[in-house]
């Protein structure tokens, strides 16, 4: 095609020559890094999930025996599917992440909307206010929530002091605490992509809808909301996907028997020291999340195109 001729465009490279140019070097370094330390590790996790645990160093059986025979098996996966506990943990993780995402969206959307419609100076201040908690430690903020919601914590202490309740209300170690914890820590991740989408919205479209006879809530439903879908998807996935595999929040706020897969994986790995079962747990979690991750990427690339 066109590349076969003397073409050497200054602004866009195409074709095979790319990887052998200076640009190829610039692209190649981060590419190689992410390839080796992000993509290859998934293959290694999968390979180890096919082994059986051993008391050895490293603590898993080799994939090939001394005679070169293949020794891998789906033993761990069989275990996962037969044990109702694991199935329940996966389902519960998706459920908790889903509810928390919904709550985050309901809190985050009005905030993003108001920020996007504010005067530029106010807008910057509010954005800063959204980001500020994020810059201070995540772990410490979860810990703060724990002190607020504990049986002997702030809320119960106040309520008891004022005689509004006789016995502490159990908040910590319930699913409620998980919803609060996840929506709290992930709120900025919902607000920022929503804001980015709403900020670029052409508000004269909303005015046009109102001019054509829509009440303002209807104009919102028919114009603003549909146009902010890419932001909603990006924000929802930024919350939902990591929340599904969350470890810290269920560990600190949830009950000791809370069925969250991130926590199970942690315990399997660190307490039971079964690297192979933990690997298979990670592989299945990743498979469950492939669809949402693809959705996220599509939403991201669409937002990119609109810029």
């Amino acid at each position: 095609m066109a590349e076969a001729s003397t073409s050497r465009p200054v602004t866009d490279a195409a074709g095979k020559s790319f990887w052998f140019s200076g640009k190829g070097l610039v692209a190649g370094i981060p590419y190689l890094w992410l390839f080796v330390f992000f993509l290859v590790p998934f293959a290694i996790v999968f390979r180890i999930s096919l082994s059986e645990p051993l008391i050895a160093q490293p603590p898993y059986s080799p994939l090939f025996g001394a005679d070169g025979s293949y020794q891998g098996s789906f033993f761990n996966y069989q275990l996962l599917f037969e044990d109702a506990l694991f199935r329940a943990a996966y389902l519960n993780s998706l459920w908790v992440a889903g509810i928390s995402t919904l709550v985050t969206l309901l809190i985050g959307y009005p905030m993003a909307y108001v920020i996007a419609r504010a005067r530029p100076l106010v807008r910057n201040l509010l954005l800063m206010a959204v980001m500020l908690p994020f810059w201070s430690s995540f772990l410490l903020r979860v810990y703060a929530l724990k002190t607020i919601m504990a049986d002997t914590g702030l809320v119960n202490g106040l309520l008891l002091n004022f005689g509004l309740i006789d016995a502490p209300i159990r908040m910590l170690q319930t699913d409620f605490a998980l919803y609060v914890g996840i929506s709290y820590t992930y709120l900025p991740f919902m607000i920022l992509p929503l804001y980015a989408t709403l900020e670029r919205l052409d508000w004269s479209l909303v005015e046009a809808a109102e001019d054509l006879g829509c009440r303002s809530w209807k104009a919102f439903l028919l114009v603003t909301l549909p146009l902010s879908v890419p932001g909603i998807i990006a924000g929802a996935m930024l919350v939902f996907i990591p929340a599904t595999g969350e470890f810290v929040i269920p560990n600190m706020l949830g009950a000791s028997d809370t069925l969250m897969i991130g926590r199970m994986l942690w315990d399997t790995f660190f307490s039971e020291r079964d690297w192979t079962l933990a690997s298979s747990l990670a592989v299945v979690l990743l498979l469950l999340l492939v669809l949402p991750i693809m959705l996220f990427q599509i939403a991201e690339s669409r937002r990119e195109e609109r810029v």
Partner: protein
Amino acid sequence: MSRRRGKVALLGLVVAGFAFLYLPLVVLVLFSFNASKLVSVWGGWSTKWYLELFRNEQILNAAWLSLKIATINATGATLLGTMAGLVLARFGRFGGRALFTGLIAAPLVMPDVIIGISLLLTFVSMEQFIGWPYGRGIDTILIAHITFSTAYVAVVVQSRASGLDRSIEEAALDLGARPITAFLLVTLPMLAPALASGWLLAFTLSLDDLVIASFVSGPGSSTLPMVIFSKVRLGVTPEINALATLLIGIVALAAGTATWIQIRRSGRA
């Protein structure tokens, strides 16, 4: 009428949202000055937890280690992430672009436990086959942190770079600047705000990470989040409140300065 009520309701929601974001921070700050060890009891003002914090060598050592890791990580990730962001924003189509985009987007959402376990197993396998990295410690934590921080920096740089007017760089070439000069004198200064926020973001992410560091760290390389985690699991530890307050103070100061500079700049324009 209904419009105004709608506006009031909306503002109410937003105020509640911000209260939700800030209540835990206020609690941390307040109780760092509480003489009582119990959160539900106010024992009067005191700064004793701060003194205890500064006597706690375990916390101080971990904080120093975490700051070191965060700084190196932020610098490395800014380097790699800037390259990656520019590739996405500027290099158009090339063979393998789709996978590259995926490698940048996926770390943003990938659950920490998956990144942690897969990197640890990778390090173990690498040690087994090529003898490096020998054992686990600061270098393995750094590799892990740079890996996910790079993706964040790349996104920040990409969005800034694709918002820049291409013809400004073309003007530099047209005026006789070679590509490398044009990049250093024109592109880089225009990207500077993105590089700064990318660096800070990477710094924070590293300072904040518990899960991945727990997987890939070795004996003697406990980061600050790992120490905090082990402490708060054991029970109420008010010196952690003091630590949190210091952290919030630093962040608020930095944010305030940044905002002030921004306002002053926009005022001059």
